[in-house]
């Protein structure tokens, strides 16, 4: 008898445990969620902010792949926005306009409106870092004008504008800054930060206004947590050299003694060293750049197979890089006085004691830092042509 009771007891226990397996009472399936692909934060005309979310529409994707392949321009996302005191408040208000639960886990792009960024971003960054859903790997941008406009665009080549912005960032033409990087910069010794600046390429005539495309127009410069200005893409290239982030470059110059035409090289391998030094009480940064790449276009009549001419070409490229760097220093260091070059961190690492002494008046020290450059360009290969093509041989300058 006792045996039987034991068996019955065991079966009852098993059935009880089975109940726990179905776990459906609070299921949240994919069609109960509003997947945010991008978020834009703008300044409200009053005190708060205006948050806009670009939400993915899975149904649109389904009909698109099944029926006619319309290519780009198909609306896969919708944009909802709301005002609020801060992001958390605005999200709760957007939620009233969305039948599905807002889910941040796939949000790969955050765009800060210019006006909003000028007011200071710290307060809203806290939400993004504290909430468990937003990803630290999401890319951050600042937009010229209102940020919501970048979400409304339907770029023809990508599925939605967030995808386009993400891919632009990954190309590393301008800066590539993730949320984690931005937070580190804001909290770092430099007390300055930089984000890629987005602008909108206006649509062609006859196209819908939403058919413009976002592109990276330069770099937005933050001091403390406030936007103080922006620099052009040209100047950004200099910043990339200075911060060792340069990856792909296309440098087009006219060699000094060439009669006409330009040469272009694609340096794709860089060794950049940035060494802070204090010499006789003077603070210096020694920037040594070694870069090499192939010749991709030669519009001059010079023969690159001649080593003397090749060196002249290299010298011209060196000067061009130096000019970019000086341009960047001039704007960022001398005019804006924002340490987005990370000099504070560098000196802190190499000269902790001296840095500790100037820490509180870094704003005064930073613009006085001298940057010395030492640039070596090596044009390694001529490409598939030796002498300049399409000119008679006797016009080619071989010496």
């Amino acid at each position, binding site marked *: 008898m006792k045996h039987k009771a034991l068996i019955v007891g065991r079966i009852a226990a098993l059935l009880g445990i089975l109940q726990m397996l179905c776990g459906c009472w609070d299921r949240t399936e994919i069609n109960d969620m509003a997947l945010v692909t991008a978020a834009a934060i703008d300044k409200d005309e009053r005190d708060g902010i205006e948050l806009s979310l670009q939400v993915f529409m899975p149904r649109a994707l389904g009909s698109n792949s099944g029926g006619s392949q319309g290519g780009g321009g198909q609306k896969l996302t919708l944009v909802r926005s709301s005002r609020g005191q801060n992001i958390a408040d605005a999200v709760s208000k957007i939620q009233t306009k969305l039948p599905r639960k807002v889910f941040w886990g796939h949000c790969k792009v955050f765009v800060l409106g210019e006006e909003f960024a000028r007011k200071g971003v710290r307060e809203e960054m806290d939400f993004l870092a504290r909430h468990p859903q937003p990803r630290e790997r999401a890319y951050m941008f600042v937009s010229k004008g209102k940020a919501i406009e970048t979400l409304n665009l339907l770029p023809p080549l990508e599925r939605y504008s967030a995808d386009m912005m993400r891919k632009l960032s990954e190309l590393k033409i301008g800066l590539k800054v993730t949320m984690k990087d931005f937070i*580190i910069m804001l*909290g770092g010794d430099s007390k300055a930060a930089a984000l890629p600046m987005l602008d909108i390429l206006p649509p062609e005539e006859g196209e819908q206004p939403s058919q413009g495309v976002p592109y990276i127009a330069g770099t937005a410069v933050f001091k403390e947590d406030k936007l103080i200005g922006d620099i052009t893409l040209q100047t950004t290239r200099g910043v990339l050299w200075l911060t060792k982030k340069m990856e792909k470059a296309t440098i087009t110059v006219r060699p000094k003694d060439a009669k006409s035409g330009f040469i272009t090289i694609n340096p794709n391998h860089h060794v950049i060293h940035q060494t802070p030094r204090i010499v006789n009480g003077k603070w210096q940064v020694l920037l040594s750049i070694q870069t090499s790449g192939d010749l991709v276009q030669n519009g001059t009549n010079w023969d690159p197979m001649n080593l003397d001419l090749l060196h002249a070409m290299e010298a011209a490229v060196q000067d061009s890089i130096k000019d970019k760097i000086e341009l960047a220093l001039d704007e960022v260091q001398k005019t804006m006085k924002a340490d987005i070059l990370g000099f504070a961190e560098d000196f802190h690492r190499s000269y902790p004691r001296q840095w500790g002494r100037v820490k509180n008046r870094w704003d005064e020290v930073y613009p006085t830092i001298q940057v010395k450059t030492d640039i070596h360009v090596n044009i390694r290969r001529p490409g598939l042509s030796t002498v300049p093509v399409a000119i008679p041989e006797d016009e080619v300058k071989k010496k």
Partner: protein
Amino acid sequence: MLEKGKISSAQMAFMLFAAVVGTVILSIPAISGTYAKNDVWISPIWASFAGLIAIMTAYKLQSFYPKLTIIQYAARILGPFPGKLLGLAYLLFYIVMNGHGVRIYADFIVGTTLPRTPLIILVATMILLCTLAVRGGIEGIGRAAQIIVPGYMIAFIALILLILPNCNAEHLFPILEHGLTPSLQGSIPPQGWFAEFFLISFLLPFLSDKKKAKKWSWVALITTTLTLVVTNLVILCLFGRNISSYTYPLLTATRYISLADFFENVESVITAIWVIGNFVKFSVVHYALVLGTAQWLNLSDYRPVAWPIGILTIIISFWSMPSQMALSHYTTFVFPFYSLLFQTLIPALLLLIAYIRMRDSKGDHSS
């Protein structure tokens, strides 16, 4: 003897590793980072000395009183009444430690992955599982550790390798900017965890291969130290010196993993592995507690006390801890000293007294 099962020295090493690393890896790097800044990776090395002391004292005491645990030899060393009192203090220490450990684990799960699940469900299911494991005896826990911990280590190594491409070694510098003080200060919270190596005193009597015990406990200590050093290094290289601004730096680091744009969002896998690692931890402490209680009460079997102590642990995990912030304050300012007192200082004093007693009794014989 209450426990008839036997474990191998290797199993003991796995159990100790899980017992220390289980919870320390979640939030302690951030607490260390508050003080140590970019010397945070040095802190576990200092802290490992607490583990060294704990293991050495446990060994010496064991050699004086083989086959006994601290609850039993405390009574032999100090005499029946003070010994029992100290035994009770130890039981209270371990039940509070386990209760708060479970709370750290449950807060972590609720705060990061299961926001709508009541805390009590996580605490209760974990203790339920641990109690069942404890009732199965030390052999069961030992074998579970042997299976789980290698998986834990493989996952940890894979995780570190995946984070590495995002790391920037520049964040390490300047090393020792403000001297040794910051890293020593930062080592105090992990010291409390390293002292948990004293749990070895509950495992040593049940080893089947006592000769290898010493070697394997050093292996456990070194692996634990290395794990924490690597964790702190990776977090530091990823986030820079302000790692204290993250509640769970290693979790945030796993969220940063991205391989070829599609291998992403792996933190739930990591969380699952942490959960089973923590299961081993709580089982080991719970086992020590249950066995100790049975020995303290001179029971003939330890199994009947497993459930009541499990329920007490659940209650303690809620007592006096209104929030995660309060718990974090406790683990920073109270637990390290409490833990060091009970797991290094008092055992060392016991050893001293035992040594004097032994010497005196020997002297009596010769005269």
